[in-house]
């Protein structure tokens, strides 16, 4: 470490300790913010300290879970610099790198918008791109705009670096076209396909000629086996694939993982087809870093749940399931998983509209809540924009008398638990900042997590 970097690093760490000492949260990003502000190039130098280089993970949905799964795969053999708190902007990543004394590999979840700059600065060995869905249009702008930025960033990626990309997403797979060092993953199990594309699907027109794609199988949103009947563009061959997928209610899902070196059955302890995609992304990342297939599988099977994403808590004789919802595609998969596992009788849905949630709340109308509304007995709507949720559900036909509006999150959680029968599990679906608040409430109350305890790095 150069003298200037050492000085900046120690000053920034001091700020982090002061911040924690002052009780201002975990002090997660404050040191990084300082470094980022003082000298953004320090990130280049901090990343260069890692002997085994850096792996970056990005995409609209699943990047936190994918990165957590990858950490489960890599942790036995590597010392990781991993931003597991979800601080995925440049400043958060700078903080993670600052704290990474002794780490040999960077495993970094990166915000879609921040990815190009972090690719330039960290010179990654592997970049893993999961998917692109419409998300927080008020903050990110349109999908094409993000794809354009990614295209430029991938063009600047070192030829020896591996691009891990989701073949089932036309925009993402398109980024890997013509690249030699790449690993493409996807789902190959038409039995698990949906009946056609969902409402408000993205990327349904051919990236080359604009003709609508024909889907032989659509799995999650617009992710699937697509081809254009006009120009012939279609899903590229899969290097890593999931076949013979068997859901196991809300308890998990198993599948056959086909990789270049063989195939092994994997049993994930989290449910949902979207988690199969996350597992494929993490497995491909692990394989591209030289982890043996059996070790990849063992890592995936050890994984339990990422922060606020399908976390289960027990409260006396009841439980609750915390399931982040943040955009139509992600919310649809969360709801589909609930539906397949049996819709819980009581749901708390919480909508905030801060910057991290998206200030534009119109996306809730693009979520297919209807099947879950049919199965639910009671819904408590909460958060700063609870009334908008109430309108979403009542205009969908959910009866007013089974809907309650409790703006305060703590009160809404308690009311939801009260309505939940003994031995039952309440489903809590919050947006990002509401999720943080609910987790804080759970931690404050010392709620135990029955299936796992969050393990350190």
């Amino acid at each position, binding site marked *: 470490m150069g003298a200037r970097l050492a000085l900046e690093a120690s000053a920034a760490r001091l700020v982090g300790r002061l911040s924690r000492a002052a009780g201002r949260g975990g002090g997660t990003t404050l040191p990084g913010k300082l470094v980022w502000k003082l000298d953004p190039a320090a990130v280049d130098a901090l990343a260069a300290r890692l002997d085994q280089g850096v792996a970056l993970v990005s995409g609209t949905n699943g990047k936190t879970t994918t990165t957590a799964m990858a950490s489960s795969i890599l942790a036995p053999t590597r010392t990781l610099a991993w931003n597991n708190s979800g601080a995925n902007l440049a400043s958060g990543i700078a903080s993670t790198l600052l704290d990474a004394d002794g780490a040999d590999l960077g495993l970094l979840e990166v915000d879609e918008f921040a990815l190009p700059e972090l690719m330039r600065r960290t010179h990654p060995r592997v970049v893993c791109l999961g998917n692109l869905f419409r998300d927080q249009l008020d903050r990110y702008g349109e999908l094409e705009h993000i794809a354009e930025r990614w295209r430029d960033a991938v063009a600047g990626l070192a030829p020896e670096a591996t691009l891990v990309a989701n073949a089932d997403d036309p925009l993402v797979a398109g980024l890997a076209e013509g690249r030699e060092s790449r690993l493409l993953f996807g789902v190959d199990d038409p039995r698990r396909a949906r009946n056609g594309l969902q409402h408000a699907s993205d990327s349904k027109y051919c990236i080359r000629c604009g003709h609508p794609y024909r889907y032989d199988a659509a799995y999650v949103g617009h992710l699937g086996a697509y081809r254009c009947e006009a120009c012939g563009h279609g899903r590229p061959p899969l290097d890593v694939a999931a076949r013979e997928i068997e859901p196991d209610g809300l308890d998990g899902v198993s599948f056959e993982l086909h990789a270049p070196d063989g195939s092994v059955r994997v049993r994930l302890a989290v449910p949902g087809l979207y988690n199969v995609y996350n597992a494929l992304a993490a497995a491909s990342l692990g394989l591209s870093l030289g982890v043996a297939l059996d070790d990849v599988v063992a890592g995936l099977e050890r994984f339990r749940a990422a922060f606020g994403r399908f976390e289960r808590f027990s409260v006396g004789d009841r439980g609750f399931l915390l399931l982040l919802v943040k955009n139509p595609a992600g919310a649809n998969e969360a709801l589909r998983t609930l539906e397949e596992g049996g819709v819980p009788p009581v749901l708390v849905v919480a909508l905030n509209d801060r910057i991290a949630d998206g200030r534009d709340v119109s996306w809730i109308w693009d979520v297919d809540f209807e099947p879950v509304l049919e199965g639910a007995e009671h819904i408590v709507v909460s958060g700063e*924009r609870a009334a908008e949720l109430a309108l979403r559900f009542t205009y969908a036909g959910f009866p007013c008398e089974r809907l309650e509006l409790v703006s305060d999150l703590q009160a809404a959680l308690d009311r939801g638990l009260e309505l939940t029968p003994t031995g039952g599990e309440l489903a809590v679906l919050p947006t990002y900042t509401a999720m943080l608040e609910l987790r804080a409430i759970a931690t404050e109350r010392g709620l135990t997590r029955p299936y796992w305890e969050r393990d350190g790095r």
Partner: protein
Amino acid sequence: MIIRVGHLYPEYLNIYADRGNIAVFTRRAAARGHELRVDPVTLDTPLEPGSHDLLYVGGGQDREQAMIAPDLAARGDTIRAAVEGGAALLAVCGGYQLLGRGYRGRDGSWLEGAGLFPHETLAGETRMIGDVLLESTLDEAPGRTIAGFENHAGRTVLDPGAKPVGRVVAGYGNDGASGFEGCRVGRAVGTYLHGPLLPRNPWLADLLLSWAVAHATGGDPEALAPLPDELEEAAHAVAAARARSRGGKPA
């Protein structure tokens, strides 16, 4: 009474939860004993003036909008004739732009519009994004408030004498400069406001529905029976407060 709705290009123009607006029309019509029949009108679907009591045009991403723009422009005569014949129309965001005379891109390119609304839109350098609050300038409801969310790069400039939908209380509006938002021609209303627009502005949904009913019966518009709108009012109040505290600040 059956109210026939033509929903234009629903699979292309659906970015800001346009189906929320349709859901509001449907349920509020049903509450008054009317049945809404929604026909998708898409590329190559024939459209006759008078075949629908209400036309709806939503917003899309740039790529999708460009795909349907020539088709929509070619229907200009039909749409103008429908509105002259008393059909109601609601156009939101991209649909509002595309129903004007045209859109001037940053590179000077010209995208022909359908020519219903007397305005032109110029691509701006920055997007105007945020919560918005309007005070209606519609003759039927002067001063009533409309709360929504805007997200547009286009600056829409109304012709002299053209009627806006409202005066901007907070937010950017048509072009971030004029102090007005939207455009109204006959029973056609165009606006940048989504969120979606109608759930938290139910009076506007009812006004459009009353026009559609009038078109269906051939009579004069009559106010619809009021509905209990406590949730709508609560949502409106929060959205209006958001616009006042954090809506866009025109330069």
